[in-house]
């Protein structure tokens, strides 16, 4: 599983860092960071799914690896 934030879509609602605090934090303007794509440790998979399922802008991009 890999995760990233589409910075064009992110508007700083803050749902991801509220629900997935081990994956995201607020930057000084209240927007999500980090944004670059990265692997999700298996113990944080639930947080990753919650961030993905609660972003009003659909800015959290989650890729499930099939292999």
């Amino acid at each position, binding site marked *: 599983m890999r995760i990233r934030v589409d910075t064009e879509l992110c*508007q*700083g*609602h*803050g*749902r991801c*860092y*509220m629900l997935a605090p081990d994956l995201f934090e*607020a*930057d*000084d*303007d*209240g*927007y999500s960071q980090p944004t670059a794509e990265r692997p999700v440790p298996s113990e944080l998979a639930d947080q990753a799914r*919650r961030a993905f*399922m*609660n*972003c*009003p*802008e*659909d800015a959290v991009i989650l890729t499930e690896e099939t292999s």
Partner: protein
Amino acid sequence: MTDAAPDSHYTLERPEEAVDPQSIYRDLRDNTPVVQLSGRSTTGTLTISRHEDVMTALRTPELFSSDSSAVQIGNTRPLVPLQVDPPHHSKHRKALDPLFAPKQMVKYEPRVRELIRELIDEVADNGHCNFHDDIAEPLPSTIFVELLGLPVSRVDEFLALKDGIIRPPARSLEERYEMVKATGQKIYAVLEEVVEARMAERQDDFLSTIIDAKVDGQPLSRDDVVDIGYLFFLAGLDTVSASLDCIVAYLAQNPDHRQRVADDPAIIPHAIEELLRYESPVPIVPRITTADTEMSGCPIAEGSRITVLLGSANTDERVWDNPHLVDFDRESNKHLGFGGGVHRCLGSHLARMELRVALEEWHDRVPDYRLADGLELRYSPGIRQVDNLELVW
């Protein structure tokens, strides 16, 4: 093939409609997703209610402009940054975002907690209160006046001015326009006085910070600072009060949900998000089209005023599982209670913090409460305050 927007008998301006707007939203979504409502201030305005259309309007600011012609709230210049479209919007927004970022809100939390405790102390032993008058109105307005840097001794005067814009007691469109314009001039006068004073001597407040902010490397003009202040004045003095009203009114009528909040304060942030979705205390944002377009098969002409029903998008069966169920454990909650797109509520992190602290402290002191016997709640149309929220415990 497209047909012109039909008319509707709904107004969304009558108090009886404001008690249960969800059923009206559902009817609009299912039968007239682009519609001209009746009523004194909605004439000539198209109302959109489906989640998909609402998202399009929020995400396409070049077509659905938020500029000042979209709504009449007494200002003679655009409110900054709400009524400024991209690309200018993003420069001002960038300068203001840090003021309201979660990191800043942590600093204000102790003061919010101190004030809510004082307010609760006044009523806790009485066994009853008007939650709107005693808690929901004074808490956010006092905090905001302190943060902005307006004189706290004049908070009642400011609340009256805010109501003069948001809920003018007008009987006609013309009367409403005149009342709102006159009140707007008074708000400008208050802000100009305080901004002049801060330009001469800075204090530890938002207005002083904004005066020193740079956009494109240049300081803001005095008018820019006043125009930001005007927006803050309206947004800061009303929306959190209405949200607290809506949330506590819901909990007072739903003992299982109330008990869960009282037993488990950790659920409060989730309860807030779910009730912001379901109640949508700020149910509407205005836009105006910059070109001919179409939504849900209905043509929309350039220059049309659009009422974007966030509240309806938040309960649209097309995208939500069980939208009419209030579920604090909802797995997916992409609510638009703070709007969306580039104009997402600037104060949302402040609002969340105030709501959380207020609900934590209230349920710690008054965990078991209900509506006064025989009470019929009065929700205001537009921003949904509940001014007769009489509680007993």
